[in-house]
């Protein structure tokens, strides 16, 4: 019988049915970071348990690392305690740790693919909701809570209810200046922030066939913002070409066998989906959020909605959003003044994102009064960007060039909004207070649109600002 990738991967990793009806699912690859793992190790110690398969867990530090000065001890004693705790846990339990001096440190969802740890057909878990990113490789990858991090450390398994699968086709072509970020913002706008509840999203169609791995990662990353616990793209030649030669990937004859196996994990033609959604690439324009959840989004040339024109269930959140964002119904979003611009995060902090921004801003300058920071997603990205001269381009254009980490995506490090500053951000969440100030305001958009906001000082259409 024809099966989807989701079903195949689920079946090969299902250990048994638990008494409550959930599945005990084997987690092939486990990623951890400093924020959600220390309590898990604490519980493990309390129960007198060990890490069952230490070679299946990899650790990095990303959320709390300062991006300007990296010397330890960090000036924030709590942050310093967290990195030390992770280092100790990795040492005590024999876990590979991409520490600050490894050259491999970075945001966990950028490091996994970059090092070739993320591979097709795997189950991957991490105590972080954006673990869905790894689905770009045809893995079933989901975020888990701290108790489940403990479960995976102790048993390499977790209790999970099987999801349904929703296939999302994006066919046709994307217009000039329309990026992967616009595709996912559009999908969330169309299906809603909880449209994916209980589903795994399988993304496909002509647009995804043409997408690079980095573009696929941007989309899968934000699956969780649409309520789907995981999202994936079937593995193909693009996937294999990206993985070839990466540190943790199979080599030699092993490689050929792996590719054959990976190819076979893709969804079979004619397999059944629980739901199918069709979207035309031509219908998508550069998209920006205006509210306090990622589904509150409009095309750049649209005006802000009137709350009363929205479906009844969305009205109260819309009113709350207008109050928080200090925006008015009916006005255009274009021209909204920005104070800060942020390029980075596990959504858009990869090399191709930085290349595109550098290409656009060359010969332009950040508008006076705007604070602009570029934060590479990993030390690997940082090194390449420096070698390629991208860092110089950013500095010449008036951006601050920082070290690798999560930075202003959630502001657990010193990079924060102040007061009600408005930030044009390439990250993934515009929740109230997300960027470090309870009254701070976030508008999500593609890196190119962030670049346009940087040089004009207002929310702008990148297609009009940059003619190239």
């Amino acid at each position, binding site marked *: 019988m024809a099966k989807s990738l989701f079903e195949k991967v689920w079946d090969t990793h299902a250990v048994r049915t638990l008494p409550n009806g959930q599945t005990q699912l084997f987690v092939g690859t486990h990623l951890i970071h400093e924020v959600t793992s220390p*309590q898990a190790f604490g519980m493990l110690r309390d129960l007198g348990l060990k890490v069952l398969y230490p070679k299946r867990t990899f650790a990095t530090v990303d959320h709390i690392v300062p991006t300007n000065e990296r010397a330890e001890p960090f000036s924030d004693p709590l942050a310093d305690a967290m990195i030390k705790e992770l280092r100790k846990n990795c040492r005590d339990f024999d876990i590979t740790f991409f520490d600050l001096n490894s050259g491999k440190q970075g945001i966990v969802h950028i490091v996994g693919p970059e090092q070739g740890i993320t591979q097709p057909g795997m189950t991957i878990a991490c105590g972080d909701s954006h673990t869905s990113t790894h689905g770009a490789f045809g893995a079933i990858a989901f975020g888990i*809570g701290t108790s489940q991090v403990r479960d995976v450390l102790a048993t390499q398994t977790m209790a999970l209810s099987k999801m349904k699968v929703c296939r999302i086709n994006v066919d046709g072509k994307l217009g000039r200046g329309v990026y992967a970020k616009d595709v996912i913002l559009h999908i969330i706008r169309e299906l809603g922030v909880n449209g994916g509840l209980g589903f795994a999203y399988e993304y496909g169609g002509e647009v995804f066939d043409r997408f690079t791995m980095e573009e696929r990662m941007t989309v899968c990353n934000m699956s969780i913002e649409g309520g789907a616990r995981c999202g994936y793209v079937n593995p193909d030649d693009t996937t294999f070409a990206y993985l070839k030669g990466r540190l943790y990937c199979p080599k030699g004859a092993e490689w050929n066998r792996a590719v054959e196996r990976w190819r076979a994990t893709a969804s079979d033609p004619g397999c059944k989906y629980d739901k199918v959604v069709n979207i035309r690439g031509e219908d998508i324009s550069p998209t920006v959020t205006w509210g306090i959840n990622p589904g509150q989004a409009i095309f750049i040339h649209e005006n802000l909605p009137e709350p009363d024109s929205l479906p009844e269930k969305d009205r109260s959140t819309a009113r709350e959003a207008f109050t928080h964002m200090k925006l008015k119904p009916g006005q255009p979003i274009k021209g909204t003044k920005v104070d800060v611009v942020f390029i980075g995060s596990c959504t858009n902090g990869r090399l191709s994102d930085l290349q595109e921004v550098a290409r656009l801003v060359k010969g332009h300058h950040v508008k006076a009064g705007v604070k602009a920071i570029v934060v590479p997603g990993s030390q690997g990205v940082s090194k390449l960007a420096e070698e390629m001269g991208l860092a110089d381009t950013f500095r010449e254009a008036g951006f601050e060039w920082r070290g690798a980490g999560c930075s202003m995506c959630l502001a657990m490090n010193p990079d924060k909004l102040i007061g009600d500053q408005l930030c044009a951000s390439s990250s993934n969440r515009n929740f109230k207070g997300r960027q470090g100030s309870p009254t701070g305001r976030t508008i999500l958009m593609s890196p190119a649109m962030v670049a346009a906001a940087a040089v004009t000082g207002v929310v702008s259409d990148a297609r009009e600002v940059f003619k190239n």
Partner: protein
Amino acid sequence: MSLAKITSVTGRGVCVPGADIDTDRIIPARFMKCVTFDGLGEFAFYDERKKADGSDKPHPLNDPRFKGASILLSGSNFGCGSSREHAPQSLYRFGFRAVIAESFAEIFFGNSITLGMPCVTLPRAELQALAAVIEKDPKAEIVVEVQNRKVICAGKSYVAGLPHSAHEALITGKWDAIADLLEGLPEVARVAASLPYAI
């Protein structure tokens, strides 16, 4: 590991209205700089409850009428956003023992059940009716009958939603999966050996 069977939760309620209340609002990220969950209780809904200078804002959780409430009522898609277990941990440590909402985000729901904090759903109109009852009489007792999937308050009974696996886990005292998972270890070894990748 034997845990208490959670068949019902009784207490007073408080309603934090709104849809899509995300985990950043339940516990702002800056309070996640910690290596244990102890002490997270005081930071539940911190930015909603406190002004920048630390003084109180008007908020249901600051309202003396609802002090000591142990059942939280809210709207749809409650707990969306990040996978941080810090969110249900902070609610639990604040004193909540059950949450009633129109719907829950998946990861938050799972994290809450693992703590032994039932999350049950009610249709919007009934939630509003229940909220109106406690607004009028903050001392009204609410019973979340996990076993029978019912919420009872002021002599009225509402049919609540709770998926089978969570229901089973709570009423049999197996809401923390670790004991069951450890029992499966021999089969885990078999699956580990059968997988084509080790990394």
